[in-house]
């Protein structure tokens, strides 16, 4: 076997599982599309398409960062992040570049074209078969070029990456809107891809040969600002958690908001071209995309690129020895993680609230949701605007925190099968819920039946929560004393939260909407208890193997 082929196989082996899986999913959905059209079939296919789309995004991430972790590159030297062990193989530089680029291109196009043709188009989305795939390839090659090539200018790779992102976004919008004709659009993408591949070839050769980079007057030694020492281990660990993953969720939300903004601006049915037809007619408008944020995070965490690990690109789940050997009780470590999650969620909620406020002022207006909601509440608001908005913000913050803590559970236990089954469960829910919704809103008999079952389901959830809580307390009793104390505090805090929420809801809602029993039950279910209670025990299970 010649070295070039071996190199090619090396790049292929890591992503072939996901690629085959996605192709299988597309085949399944294509078969479903053959069935006679019905709302059930539509919903099934759309849910499946959503999941497949998520998988495709994960695959793009995998291809893009497969051999190059841009964060490891020496940015100030315009450096290359290509693994040195591959540079010393007896293959030409063009083999090192063209094989991964080739595989990524073929895989991405090979997944997108059948996906578009057999899944999306039959459902009525008039998407082009070619240019979105080209856009993915362009994105991947541009990031690869920025991290493989050794640029002669400091921070050159960062500039290239950001510039590349801008070009891809711009070309996508322009082609989607139909400003250029199709062939011109394709040509522009191909040209951009060619430029990136050429840059990769040139830059990797420079990295291989060790061309010296020109530094702008030598590296400046930054002045070190001495900060006061931490007063306790908890504060130290909290600083670390916030530094390590605090920016992940807000960053993700910012990206999602930008994407949403673009879709909202350009996804209007009155605009020409394909982008205009990507508006999804689900009540609530494109707010549905915000749900994608936690979902995508869960998917990537199942793939091993969890936001909560030390290094995003090493798929290891155990607690790193450096952190497991901190002289802190597991309860304190867990508390640091939860508090850092809360800080992160707070920032995220502020960003979301700002974004929602911004959009409610925009002409697109979420398909009219904001105006209807405002009209419904208008008569009721009056002097209660401020407390109501604060209350809404608090609910938003709690919801984001609940999701963030639930996501990090796959990392906390350190067992991959838990994270995987969690994602599987949520994925199954995504497929099942729209189907149920279908039955909900079409069959009045079902609605009555379900309304009658509602108290039973409610009660069952309450009992489940209670049982899991008691189980958690049993497990905590057997562990460190500190964990037991933590659980008692969590229980107390939860009780306080329930009382507060019930009281506030009772005060704010108009009388007679819900009785006090339902209010109490709802608060009991909403305020997170088990997530918090189980965290230290789950972490202890990971720490002491």
């Amino acid at each position: 076997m010649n070295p070039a082929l071996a190199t090619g196989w090396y790049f292929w082996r890591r992503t072939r599982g996901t690629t085959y899986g996605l192709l299988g999913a597309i085949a399944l959905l294509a078969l479903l599309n053959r069935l006679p059209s019905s709302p059930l079939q539509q919903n099934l296919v759309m849910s499946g398409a959503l999941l497949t789309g998520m998988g495709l995004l994960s695959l793009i991430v995998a291809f893009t960062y497969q051999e190059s972790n841009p964060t490891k590159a020496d940015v100030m030297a315009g450096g290359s992040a290509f693994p040195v062990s591959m540079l010393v193989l007896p293959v030409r530089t063009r083999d090192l570049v063209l094989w991964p680029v080739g595989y990524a291109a073929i895989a991405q196009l090979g997944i997108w074209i059948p996906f578009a043709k057999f899944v999306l188009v039959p459902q009525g989305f008039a998407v082009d078969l070619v240019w979105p795939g080209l856009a993915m390839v362009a994105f991947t090659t541009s990031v690869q070029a920025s991290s493989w090539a050794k640029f002669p200018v400091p921070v050159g790779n960062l500039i290239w990456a950001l510039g590349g992102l801008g070009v891809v976004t711009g070309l996508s919008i322009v082609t989607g809107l139909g400003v250029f004709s199709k062939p011109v659009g394709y040509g522009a993408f191909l040209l951009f891809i060619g430029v990136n591949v050429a840059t990769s070839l040139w830059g990797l050769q420079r990295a291989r040969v060790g061309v010296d980079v020109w530094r702008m007057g030598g590296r400046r030694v930054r002045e070190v600002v001495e900060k006061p020492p931490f007063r306790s281990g908890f504060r130290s660990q909290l600083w670390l958690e916030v530094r390590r993953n605090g920016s992940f969720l807000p960053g993700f939300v910012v990206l999602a908001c930008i994407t949403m903004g673009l879709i909202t601006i350009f996804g209007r049915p009155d605009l020409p071209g394909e982008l205009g037809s990507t508006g999804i007619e689900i009540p609530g408008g494109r707010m549905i995309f915000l749900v994608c944020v936690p979902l995508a995070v869960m998917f990537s965490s199942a793939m091993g690129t969890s936001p909560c690990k030390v290094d995003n690109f090493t798929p290891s789940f155990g607690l790193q020895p450096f952190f497991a050997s901190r002289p802190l009780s597991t309860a304190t470590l867990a508390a640091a993680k939860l508090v850092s999650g809360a800080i992160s969620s707070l920032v995220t909620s502020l960003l979301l609230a700002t974004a929602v406020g911004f959009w409610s002022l925009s002409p697109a207006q979420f398909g009219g949701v904001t105006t209807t909601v405002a009209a419904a509440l208008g008569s009721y608001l009056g002097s209660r605007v401020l407390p109501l908005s604060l209350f809404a913000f608090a609910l938003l913050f709690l919801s984001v925190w609940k999701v963030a803590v639930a996501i990090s559970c796959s990392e906390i236990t350190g067992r991959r099968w838990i994270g995987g089954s969690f994602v599987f469960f949520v994925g199954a829910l995504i497929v099942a819920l729209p189907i149920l919704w279908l039955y909900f809103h079409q069959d009045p008999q079902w609605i009555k039946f379900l309304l009658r079952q509602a108290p039973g389901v409610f009660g069952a959830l309450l009992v489940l929560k209670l049982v899991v809580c008691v189980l958690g307390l049993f497990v905590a009793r057997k562990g460190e004393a500190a964990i037991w104390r933590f659980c008692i505090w969590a229980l107390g805090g939860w009780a306080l939260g329930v009382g507060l929420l019930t009281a506030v809801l009772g005060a704010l809602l108009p009388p007679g909407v819900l009785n006090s029993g339902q209010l109490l039950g709802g608060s009991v279910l909403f305020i997170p208890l088990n997530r918090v209670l189980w965290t230290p025990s789950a972490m202890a299970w990971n720490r002491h193997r």
Partner: protein
Amino acid sequence: MIVEVENVTRQFGEKRALNRISLTIPKGTVLGLVGENGAGKTTLIKHLMGLLKPDQGTVRVFGKDPVVDPVGVLGQIGYLSEEDILPGWMRLHELIRYSRGFYPSWDADYAEALRRDFGIEKGARIRELSKGQRARAGLIVALAHRPELLLLDEPSSGLDPIVRRDILGAIIRTIADDGRTVLFSSHLLAEVEQVCDRVAMIRQGELLFCDDLESIQRSYGWITVRYPEVQPTPPLLEGAVSWNGDGREWSVLVHGLPGAVEAETTLRGAAIVDRRWATLDEIFVGLSTELVGR
């Protein structure tokens, strides 16, 4: 007793990593832990820190169970390992500030003195440092709070002699200061001989011996035996661990009293022509290859 390990057994799936190991380390001792790769040294050290729970048996450090009381145990342990476990993105001054929060006994002046001695810049990122500098950074974090127990898991592997001297110097200063305890696991047996009071050897999860260094050195030795006839295969001798040579003269590494060996050799008409001490390295290699065959 600082460390008490009693009948600890630990299995990973099929493999038995530790098999009924019992070990004690009195205060002020420097214990050298030697063994092949995969013998179970790191597993044992992880048990002492509570990172692993024994399937059977008990582990007590400072009289406490490290799994039940991590704060009490880990707060007085300084740990240095061969793996790169420091977060790469942290700068040195951040690492020091972060570590300081955990230990009330942190001596900031001592940390600063070490940093200056080692010549590491405050603003340097851990991942930008060379391997030796990273080891030194880890050493600062392990030593600055003057721990009662220093756990070193092959700290010198892959490091240049200058860094190794720094690490050994740190160990010596630690024991010289109020007799703190050190557990030192290493492949460089010359270093173990230099620094340790007691030596424990683990092979495939079993504890072969745990004894004072001097007793070990006295109970092993090389003798050169000359036989009247040519011996085609290594001749049998009571207590022989390892053989070397051919024809009439054979060098034997023996375990046991020299008198017994002499008696046996004269029985066969052979003569002992030379005697010398055995280094710990030779004992280790001899014992490791004993059952595998030569």
